[in-house]
């Protein structure tokens, strides 16, 4: 890549990791399992979600391997149903929903607002335990034979027709839901009540705004999913139907209640990622994010509009034409704040001093892939095209572009960006740039053919398909192997860097956030004294003055 870099590391011959930091403060397993420290809980979360990501990833590999050939030959159709269901459940509820908020958000939000910890440390720990419990129940579900409803638990399929483990899967999602409610609740309280002196709302980093918006969705949306799953479980156990038409229930009511959460859940999954991108783009183009206020409010706007569009998942299910029209129109509105973000990031790049460190590569990848993912969402939000495209691979490609191309790219950007802060050490730059490029190529190879497959009419959720679709499926499977390499590499070199990475110093990126103004890894209470915010967010001149002052005083 380019030789220009903003990385500014301390002299390796004298640099040391600070002896006193949150990792070394206490030792022993119990000091981790009973910790209240948001940075330790974030670390626990990071390890757990990585574990589940690779389980979900392995299942994705099986799916792609099965789809290599038109016949259902690697596994039987019902096994395939279980595999894609478990892939969806694990990836959505145990990886994507907690991914950025519970790990990176947990780690940096208290520091970004200048607080010693999240407002409710015990609730934060409880949220992790609930997550682990949910993960345990999910693994139990897999062990005893899995579930094959699809991640949507569609009634009456889930309540009447299947005899797989819907109850334990529903329970796992129910528990995971409360884990995410507690994370969101904690963020909202922290952002409102724990800001340091001088930290006004419009001095907050955009990452905080994005997580705030996502937290609102977690707190208000998730309980509806919880009660829906309770009703599904009751329906299965005592055979009384709110949703099952055989007992007088209404399956569309299930769809309404389910998508009332699960559409906002899509924004829970993408908004924190957008926050990461704002931080990264600003830092690596050395410019304040263009239109800070617009970007901040666009996060909140996405959260608010997110509650009004859920029925666009139901256009073919027999909802009224008039409701479909209204929901379709409202869906188009969500495109506006999303576009505001993309345009403002592009304007931030304009005339910036851009350097291409790994987080920036992921961020640029995000912008491209998210734009495609978002634009294809317009196709699906329009009632006419939706009837042709829904339940085909077009939908699969669309949400993978947003979720994997968007959120996962953003997650990796964030992990690389804050890795020096988290561990005190740099990741190896060249190989990680390579991994970022591999991920981008692998991703496009995997999912772009699926758009075409969907257009041609290949339905989703089938183990077998007509032979004329094979060429594109082979492309897709080949891409998945490349993508797999792209995801394995970071695990390897990040683990390597824990011991052998260069010492990062407190601010390797010359970034402006408060989290960069303290040592790496930070102290348990984050700052030696509570900081006072006396400048705007992303004020690089303030940083220069600050550094000049330090040099003068030395």
């Amino acid at each position, binding site marked *: 890549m380019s030789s220009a870099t903003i990385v500014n590391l301390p002299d390796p011959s004298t640099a040391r990791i600070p002896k006193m930091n949150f990792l070394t403060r206490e030792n022993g397993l119990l000091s981790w399992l009973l910790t209240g420290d948001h940075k330790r809980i974030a670390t626990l979360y990071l390890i757990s979600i990585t574990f589940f990501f690779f389980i979900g990833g392995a299942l994705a590999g099986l799916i792609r391997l099965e789809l290599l050939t038109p016949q259902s030959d690697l596994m039987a159709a019902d096994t395939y149903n279980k595999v894609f269901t478990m892939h969806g459940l694990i990836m959505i509820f145990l990886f994507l929903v907690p991914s950025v908020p519970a790990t990176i958000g947990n780690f940096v939000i208290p520091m970004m607002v200048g607080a010693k910890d999240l407002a409710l440390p015990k609730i934060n720990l409880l949220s992790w335990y609930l997550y682990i419990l949910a993960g345990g129940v999910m693994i139990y579900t897999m062990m005893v034979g899995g579930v094959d409803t699809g991640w949507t638990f569609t009634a009456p399929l889930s309540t009447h027709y299947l005899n797989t483990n819907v109850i334990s899967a529903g329970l796992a999602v129910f528990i995971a839901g409360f884990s995410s409610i507690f994370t969101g609740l904690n963020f909202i309280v922290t952002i409102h009540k724990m800001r340091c002196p001088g930290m006004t709302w419009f001095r907050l980093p955009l990452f905080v705004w994005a997580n705030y918006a996502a937290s609102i969705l977690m707190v208000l949306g998730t309980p509806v999913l919880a009660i829906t799953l309770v009703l599904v479980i009751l329906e299965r156990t005592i055979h009384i139907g709110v949703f099952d038409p055989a007992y007088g229930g209404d399956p569309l009511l299930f769809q309404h209640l389910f998508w009332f959460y699960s559409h906002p859940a899509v924004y829970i999954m993408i908004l924190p990622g957008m926050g990461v991108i704002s931080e990264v783009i600003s830092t690596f183009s050395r410019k304040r994010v263009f239109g800070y206020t617009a970007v901040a409010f666009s996060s909140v706007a996405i959260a608010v509009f997110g509650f*009004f569009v859920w029925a666009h998942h139901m256009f073919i299910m027999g909802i009224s034409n*008039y409701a479909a029209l209204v929901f379709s129109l409202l869906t188009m509105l969500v495109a506006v704040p999303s576009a505001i973000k993309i345009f403002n990031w592009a304007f931030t790049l304009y005339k910036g001093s851009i350097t291409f460190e790994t987080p920036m590569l992921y961020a640029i990848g995000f912008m491209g892939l998210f734009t495609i993912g978002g634009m294809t969402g317009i196709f699906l939000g329009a009632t006419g095209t939706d009837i042709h495209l829904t339940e085909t691979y077009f939908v699969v490609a669309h949400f993978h572009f947003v979720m994997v191309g968007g959120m996962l790219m953003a997650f990796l950007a964030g992990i690389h960006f804050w890795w020096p802060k988290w561990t005190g050490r740099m990741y190896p730059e060249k190989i990680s740039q390579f991994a970022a490029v591999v991920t981008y190529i692998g991703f496009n190879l995997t999912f772009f053919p699926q758009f075409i497959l969907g257009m041609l009419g290949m339905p989703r959720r089938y183990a077998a398909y007509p032979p004329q679709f094979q060429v594109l499926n082979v492309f897709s499977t080949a891409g998945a192997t490349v993508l797999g390499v792209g995801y394995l590499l970071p695990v390897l070199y990040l683990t390597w860097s824990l011991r052998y990475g260069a010492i990062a110093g407190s601010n390797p990126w010359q970034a402006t956030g408060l989290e960069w103004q303290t040592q790496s890894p930070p102290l348990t209470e984050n700052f030696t004294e509570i900081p006072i915010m006396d400048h705007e967010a992303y004020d690089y001149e303030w940083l220069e003055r600050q550094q000049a002052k330090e040099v003068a005083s030395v």
Partner: protein
Amino acid sequence: MSQHAEPHSREAELHIVSPKVYVAVALSLLALTAATCAISYIDLGVFNAVVALAIAVIKASLVVLFFMHMKYSSRLIKLTAFAGLFVFLTLISMTMADYISRAWGRW
């Protein structure tokens, strides 16, 4: 200064509602319960449901405002409660919008 040091939130903490208010609220809640029960014995057609729910809303508002100290709380708390109500009404009204307009047929 930071938000938490603002004077109004300190006041909110220190505001102690007098027992007289609590007694008055409790008595009106009991009176409203008796009233809604009595009214339900009169045939008002569709208005039975309207009146019963209106009284329930009044009762709930009394509880929220006085027992839960909303009246003396910060704007943030008021906004929070309002947000909950708003999203709940969104759920009900948007869902009902579908159910009601299904009867209109095709266009």
